[in-house]
């Protein structure tokens, strides 16, 4: 019997090729989208789950409040914590709590020049790590002993790809790599390779080109490891099986008081984050690697469902729209003995058959799309992951699930026909479910229009991010990274003069931080309005004397650093408006001349720069101090004024290699680097756009199908109208009107929903566009145009057909 059903289903589908291909194509695309999104989501959810001890690993996050914030007694919000913190907290936790079985600490990210023979690269994001690191994290060893690999000073453990990069096919164990100094952490030295591990899986919340032994760090800066106020460490804990986080958190205040003591100037606390939440749920600042976005997972899962819903609706609508065609068959089958359940079963097997074809098509699409998806998401998915029995099982469930969902309604409608009526040849009654069908089309288009409006707004916001005046000059700024190299800093004046003499370069400055790059915070005391000294910990940019004019920063009070004032090198401080406000000065002029202390320097505040967006536009401008410290610099920034960039870069490189030949010439452009902060946003935009296009495409496929059926069903009516003198335009209007009405209703429904959703999305940006009515209008017009194009083709075909012919066929 089942075989018979499938045979008939197959013939039916083959006979109605347009209908079948619309359904299969729509469902195929829908399922492919869902599959890809599912792969993406699954990957996002899999972060850090591969460690044997994942459930028992926690991360310490730190929060410290100062100044005005001390009056606020509420515990710090999740966003006020930072992952980066002090060193002593780790060993203290281990010593005080038996439920904490092991601790591993990493240093902050270090960029170090590694050298082996003629291979010389600056490796970014290296960590110093405790020898216990491999007790917590299950990174697999290829060679070396995990217990002892990071024991001795100047030991280094390399992931396989780094090992290959320096040593090729040689066995690296026991060989050495020359490491440059890691300023503030370790002196230059020869690192002995003590271990090679498999590359860190991509689904890890942080990654590194090498691990160095913490004892290297400890050897050169022993003092730091007892300083509760020195921030340069990430602390991870391995807890016992029966660890209870709530009970533990109650003990934290006592622990802090006991170990660190209390200070009138600041309040310090810690919290724990389970490793499995770190990638997606941590809101803490100063992360050791990239974080994911939980909202994006929700958004894309929702979009996946939208697309699938749209495709399923196509199926339902086209099947019920065809009900007249099938009615006679239903009648005949019933007279020869079919029970309703037989017919329901028959129609369901048709939908399962369609979904099965769609599923294969979806697999094909996924394979075609995989390389692009890898490109788009930065994740590398492998097609083979789709072929295992779990996937096959899921796939089978999806096929039957979807077949059932999309097939059950048409099956109920079609099988419910009364044979007595049908066999009498009643064929011009309205087809069943016309109202519902309209409702579903409205639903489809509402979803599509929400996505179109969303796309429109995402594009506008991203454009705004790129075009907004950030308050500093970021055009054609070439940034050379020499990584605090003392030998470069010694020659910095020579370099600056030489570069300034090049006609293609209009200005040169040096700094430790540039907008978009790393910067530290510094405990800074400034005299308040009342004459007391107030401590806060604002961000700090260490800059040279040319930095402020070079970036065209606007002064709102006082003056910039100047070579004419020798005191500037040790006794002056320039801050931004936000910092002035932080210390209680709403009028920037009032803070000029006030006393300050910062990192062992004392003197007077001499200037206030207008707030500029040194952080991404997701964030507000935070208090910033610009400290004159030319010898602490890391970057040399050149303002290039030529259009022939390659030639100029070659020239610059030439000067560089002649002046400081030991230091590789590494450069980037400031605007590109700054915009790299929006990489995730751009990715979001791309994916969002693609999915929106697919959604509207599938919705239009359905509309096309419906339009052609309507046109077909109304051929007789059209013929009569034409005989009576209706023009082609009249007829096209007649046929298109109904559909356009539905799209207009969809616009009305979609607009407020999109408005709500996009307002929420924009909240993630401190600087954002205002939603404008024209964005909605534009999306609406786009939807109507697309719908009109889809429908009018079919209408036109019907309208231009010879009426005599169409009348004769009836």
């Amino acid at each position, binding site marked *: 019997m089942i075989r018979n059903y499938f045979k008939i289903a197959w013939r039916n589908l083959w006979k109605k090729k347009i209908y079948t291909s619309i359904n299969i194509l729509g469902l195929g695309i829908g399922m492919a989208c869902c599959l890809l999104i599912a792969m993406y989501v699954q990957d996002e959810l899999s972060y850090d789950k591969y460690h044997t001890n994942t459930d028992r690993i926690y991360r310490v996050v730190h929060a410290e409040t100062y100044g005005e914030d001390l009056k606020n007694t509420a515990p710090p919000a999740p966003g006020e914590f930072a992952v980066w913190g002090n060193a002593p907290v780790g060993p203290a936790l281990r010593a005080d709590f038996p439920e904490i079985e092991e601790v591993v600490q990493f240093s902050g990210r270090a960029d170090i020049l590694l050298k082996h023979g003629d291979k010389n690269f600056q490796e970014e994001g290296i960590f110093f790590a405790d020898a216990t690191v491999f007790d917590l994290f299950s990174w697999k060893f290829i060679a070396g002993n995990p217990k002892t690999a990071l024991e001795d000073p100047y030991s280094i453990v390399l992931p396989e790809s780094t090992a290959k990069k320096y040593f090729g096919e040689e066995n690296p164990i026991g060989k050495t790599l020359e490491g440059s100094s890691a300023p503030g952490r370790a002196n230059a030295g020869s690192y002995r390779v003590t271990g090679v591990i498999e590359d860190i899986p991509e689904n890890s919340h942080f990654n590194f080109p090498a691990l160095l032994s913490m004892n290297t760090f400890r050897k050169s800066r022993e003092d730091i490891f007892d300083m509760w106020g020195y921030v340069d460490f990430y602390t991870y804990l391995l807890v016992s099986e029966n660890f209870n986080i709530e009970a533990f958190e109650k003990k934290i205040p006592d622990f802090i008081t006991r170990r660190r003591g209390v200070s009138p100037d600041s309040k310090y606390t810690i919290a724990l984050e389970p490793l499995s939440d770190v990638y997606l749920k941590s809101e803490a600042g100063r992360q050791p690697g990239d974080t994911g976005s939980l909202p994006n997972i929700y958004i894309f899962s929702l979009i996946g469902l939208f697309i699938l819903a749209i495709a399923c609706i196509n199926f339902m609508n086209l099947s019920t729209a065809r009900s007249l065609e099938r009615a006679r068959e239903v009648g*005949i089958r019933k007279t*020869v003995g079919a029970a309703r359940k037989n017919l329901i079963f028959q129609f369901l097997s048709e939908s399962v058959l369609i979904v099965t074809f769609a599923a294969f098509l979806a697999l094909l699409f996924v394979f075609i799309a995989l390389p692009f998806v890898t490109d788009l998401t930065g994740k590398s998915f492998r097609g083979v992951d789709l072929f295992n029995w779990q996937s096959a099982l899921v796939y089978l469930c999806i096929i039957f699930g979807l077949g059932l969902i999309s097939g059950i309604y048409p099956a109920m409608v079609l099988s419910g026909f009364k044979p007595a009526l049908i*066999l009498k040849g009643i064929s011009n009654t309205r087809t069943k479910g016309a109202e519902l069908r309209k409702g579903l089309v409205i639903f489809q288009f509402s979803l599509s229009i929400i996505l179109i409006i969303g796309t429109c707004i995402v594009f506008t916001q991203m454009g705004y991010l790129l075009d907004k005046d950030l308050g500093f000059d970021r055009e054609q700024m070439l940034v050379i990274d020499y990584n605090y190299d003392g030998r470069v800093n010694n020659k910095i004046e020579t370099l600056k003069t030489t570069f300034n003499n090049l006609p293609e370069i209009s200005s040169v400055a040096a700094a430790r931080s540039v907008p978009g790059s790393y910067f530290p915070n510094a405990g800074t005391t400034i005299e308040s309005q009342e004459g007391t000294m107030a401590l806060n910990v604002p961000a700090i940019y260490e800059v040279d004397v040319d930095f402020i004019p070079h970036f065209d920063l606007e002064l709102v009070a006082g003056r910039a650093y100047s070579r004419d004032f020798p005191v500037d090198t040790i006794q002056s401080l320039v801050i931004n408006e936000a910092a002035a406000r932080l210390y209680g000065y709403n009028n920037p002029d009032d803070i000029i001349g006030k006393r300050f202390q910062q990192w062992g320097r004392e003197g007077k505040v001499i200037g206030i720069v207008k707030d500029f967006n040194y952080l991404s536009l997701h964030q507000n401008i935070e208090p910033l101090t610009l400290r004159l410290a030319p010898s602490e610099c890391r970057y040399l920034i050149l303002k290039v004024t030529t259009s022939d960039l390659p030639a100029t870069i070659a020239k610059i490189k030439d000067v560089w290699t002649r002046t400081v030949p030991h230091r590789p010439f590494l450069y980037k452009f400031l605007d590109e680097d700054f915009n790299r902060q929006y990489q995730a946003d751009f990715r979001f935009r791309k994916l969002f756009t693609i999915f929106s296009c697919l959604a509207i495409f599938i919705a239009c496929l359905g509309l096309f199908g419906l339009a052609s059926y309507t046109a077909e069903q109304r051929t007789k009516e059209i013929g009569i109208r034409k005989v009576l003198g209706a023009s082609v335009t009249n007829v096209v209007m007649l046929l298109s009107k109904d559909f356009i009405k539905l799209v207009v209703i969809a616009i009305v429904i979609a607009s407020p929903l999109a408005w709500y959703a996009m307002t929420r999305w924009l909240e993630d940006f401190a600087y954002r566009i205002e939603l404008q009515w024209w964005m909605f209008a534009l999306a609406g017009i786009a939807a109507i145009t697309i719908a009109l194009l889809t429908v009018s083709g079919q209408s036109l075909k019907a309208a231009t057909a010879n009426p005599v012919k169409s009348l004769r066929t009836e």
Partner: protein
Amino acid sequence: MIKITDLEKFYRTEEVQTVALNKLSFDVKEGEFVAVMGPSGCGKSTLLNILGLLDDPDGGSFIFNGIEVSGFNERKRANLRKHNIGFVFQSFNLIDELTVFENVELPLIYTGVKAADRKERVHEVLEKMQIMHRKNHFPQQLSGGQQQRVAVARAVVNNPKLILADEPTGNLDSSNGNEVMDLLTELNQQGTTIVMVTHSEHDAKFSHRIIRMLDGQKVTENILV
């Protein structure tokens, strides 16, 4: 075999109510061949639909094989129908997507006959209807007479006790029509009860008894044999 008493059927459209059957009563005995005649719109097809359990009466009683069936739900009716009743229509009503063989096979599928038995039975019937050579053709590739022979084959393949025919010759020329009438007569002689609606006095002569209707009521009965 069939006993209807005071059978009523109404059709309600927006404003008017049509009385299609008005307290109609008659019996059909097992093995009888009955023709129903009457002007267009008098309720013949409505009657046949009710007799065939395709439709439910609005009033009165319908006893089929000793069981009161008015008020049966669809599932029960379908079940009774598939084992006992075969249909032949004026417009053949074959499924265009299925071959001759598959069309005839259909009732057997719904009664759950095994594939091998089905094949045998279908061949037997097609043989009898002299349409075997066309078994893999689709209905649209056949002439009207051939299509009606397939329809008759489909109606009898299950060995139903009752065959209901609604103007079986209406779409056929006289020679094809006679062929179909001969088939029905032969079936009747083998014991099948037949109720046939017709407009043709010629066809009606093949039956044992003619029931004449007007406006949903029986007016006369002529017994021919």
